[in-house]
């Protein structure tokens, strides 16, 4: 408890000195709100037991946009991302307060079921995690459990379309019955993306999707993210600032559990308003 409060005061004095413009939300510099939001988060706090991991974050995720979340390790960006589809529910001691709405519906409302929420907010993880099943079954699993397919033909077409959208169809169309775990790392990650889009979600969350991949596979995934933006809203957590700059329209900078600055990606990387953001993107720490 003690060190968080000292961190807070330290941050405030730094923030006060570095602030160049008025704040739109408490503690955050830049445009937190967008005109056409898919998801809106207001005053979100996250606690792991006694320890607070996220402090009063408010942020909008715009429709058909890619928003990237950057920041040093342990800054809470992954924790925040996992709030958006309630993946934090799986951790017993995790507690979320505040309001997160998707298309006007509060996702932490007691009446809302997580199953349909996760069907509409898909997730891609840091480490490619295909099921130890065939490529076909990996993609077909989501549509099957949600009852999205009428018959085998329909399911086949969903699988084909998802793999095509993930840019994997040409590489695997002849070996759909082979295990998904036998693919290369980059292919596995695209398989996971295809698995996520097979249930036609509205939002896709990506938690450092390229951190386990080589540059060529990374380039393919980035290309894919750009194409997916047409149909999906994407929130991506990344350690690579170049990646954030390449794939996203908006960027949010997190520091020690606080959302420091949000803005258009170009603006964040060319003229950050907050001292901490500037220090981070110029490589002074992190």
């Amino acid at each position, binding site marked *: 408890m003690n060190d968080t409060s000292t961190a807070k005061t330290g941050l405030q004095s730094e923030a006060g000195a570095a602030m160049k413009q008025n704040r739109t939300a408490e503690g955050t510099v830049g445009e937190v709100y967008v005109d056409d939001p898919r998801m809106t988060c207001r005053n979100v706090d996250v606690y792991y037991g006694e320890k607070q991991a996220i402090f009063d974050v408010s942020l909008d995720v715009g429709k058909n946009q890619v928003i990237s979340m950057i920041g040093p390790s342990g800054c809470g960006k992954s924790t925040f991302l996992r709030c958006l*589809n309630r*993946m934090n529910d*799986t951790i*017993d001691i995790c507690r979320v307060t505040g309001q997160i709405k998707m298309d006007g519906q509060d996702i932490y409302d007691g009446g809302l079921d*997580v*199953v*349909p*929420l*996760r*069907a509409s907010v*898909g*997730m891609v*993880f840091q*480490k490619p*995690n*295909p*099921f*130890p099943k065939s490529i076909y079954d990996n993609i077909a*699993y*989501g549509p099957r*459990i*949600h009852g999205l397919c009428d018959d085998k033909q329909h399911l086949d077409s969903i699988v084909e379309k998802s793999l095509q959208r993930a840019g994997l169809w040409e590489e695997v169309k002849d070996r759909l019955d082979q295990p998904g*775990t036998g693919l290369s790392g980059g292919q596995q990650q695209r398989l*996971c993306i295809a*698995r*996520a889009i*097979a*249930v036609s979600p509205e939002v896709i969350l990506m938690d450092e999707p390229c951190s386990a991949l080589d540059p060529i596979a990374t380039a393919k995934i980035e290309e894919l993210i750009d194409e997916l933006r047409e149909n999906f809203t994407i929130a991506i957590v990344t350690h690579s600032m170049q990646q954030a700059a390449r794939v996203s329209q908006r960027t949010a900078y997190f520091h020690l559990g606080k959302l420091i600055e949000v803005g258009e990606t170009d603006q964040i990387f060319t003229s950050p308003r907050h001292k901490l953001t500037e220090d981070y993107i110029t490589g002074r720490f992190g």
Partner: protein
Amino acid sequence: MNNQQQHQKTMERVQQGLDRRYRKERHFRWLGLGAIILGLLFVSFLFITIISNGYTAFQQTYVKLDVFYDPEMIAPIGETDPEVLSRANYGGLIKASMRQMFPEVTNRREKKVLYGLISTGASYELRNAVMSNPALIGSKAEVWVVADDDVDMLIKGHIDLRLPESDRRIKDNQLGWIHLLQEQDRIEKRFNTTFFTAGDSREPELSGIKGAIAGSFFTLLICLTIAFPVGVAAAVYLEEFAPKNRWTDLIEVNINNLAAVPSIVFGLLGLAVFINFFGLPRSVPLVGGLVLALMTLPTIIIASRAALKSVPPSIREAALGIGASPMQTITHHVLPLALPGMLTGTIIGMAQALGETAPLLMIGMVAFIVDVPGSVMDPSAVLPVQIYLWADSPERAFVERTSAAIMVLLAFLISMNLLAVWLRKKFERRW
């Protein structure tokens, strides 16, 4: 310069110490190697004693008799009524055949000794032959019948002929007859099928382990059908659903403790609960299986929980992430991945149960039972208890049968463990 000197000094020190370090490593390696060699020595010693003691039990001495199926002693030719056929005096046929072979034996007492060369079970063989083929009556045939266990021991060289006659089970006159039989090629060792097709018996040459194997099978069947589902369900609940609080901690500690409780305590529990309270019969595989299920449950729960824990969380996240419910995540992904580990634990638990004796003594499975059990409600013995019973018997022929039964038990145990290894190898997955 100073720095270089310092470095030189450091290297000297390191060099000095190197020898000692490597020596320690060598000693450690020798110690480990020694321990393994010692272990292997003990195991091979165990196997050598058991096999050298037991392999002779798989052979049995037979004697060839010229039997005349005398219609006067059995029934008139043409008789087929099994009632009549089964009541006939087949022992008399054998005695007649023996008398005919050794006409010089006339003394009443000597005759009795002569008849003792043939097992009492031989008359049942003749009866079975006649009952399955009544046309034999009136004919003559050469029949191989089981020799008495003392003759068997003599032929196998287990009787020391240097001992004075009074200390020997085989007397001098019997020796003479046996030599005569051998000269006429009337004595032969054959594969001992009785050992695998009969239940227990007071006569070693008529005893077998089929009853014990069937008893063990039924007991394990009950044990598996109860312990596996209950154990897996308990493990899944504790690992996947139960909140982590003081109560579940307490339960976990208790399960771990139960795994270390002496098995005879479970026997006492079974006696008190299943037999005295629920009034189930004694000596039956049903109760034995229930007791062994209680005993194996902790093993299965612990192994299953370990298997569930070893399923990587990324698989759970992947399933939850596309909207599978917790139940679907478990049944579609976690359980299939954990199943090999669970099965391995279960088979090891079953192997443990197969070799368990103490709790079964408490619930009366130590009784002398001749019949091969046909269901879980028939009184029966199990393999380890059969070994215990035979080891207690005074006849020399039971010594080799004890070892042979141990070999059979070990064969079952080893094959169960191999099955567990094979399952683990076959379903091992990488991710």
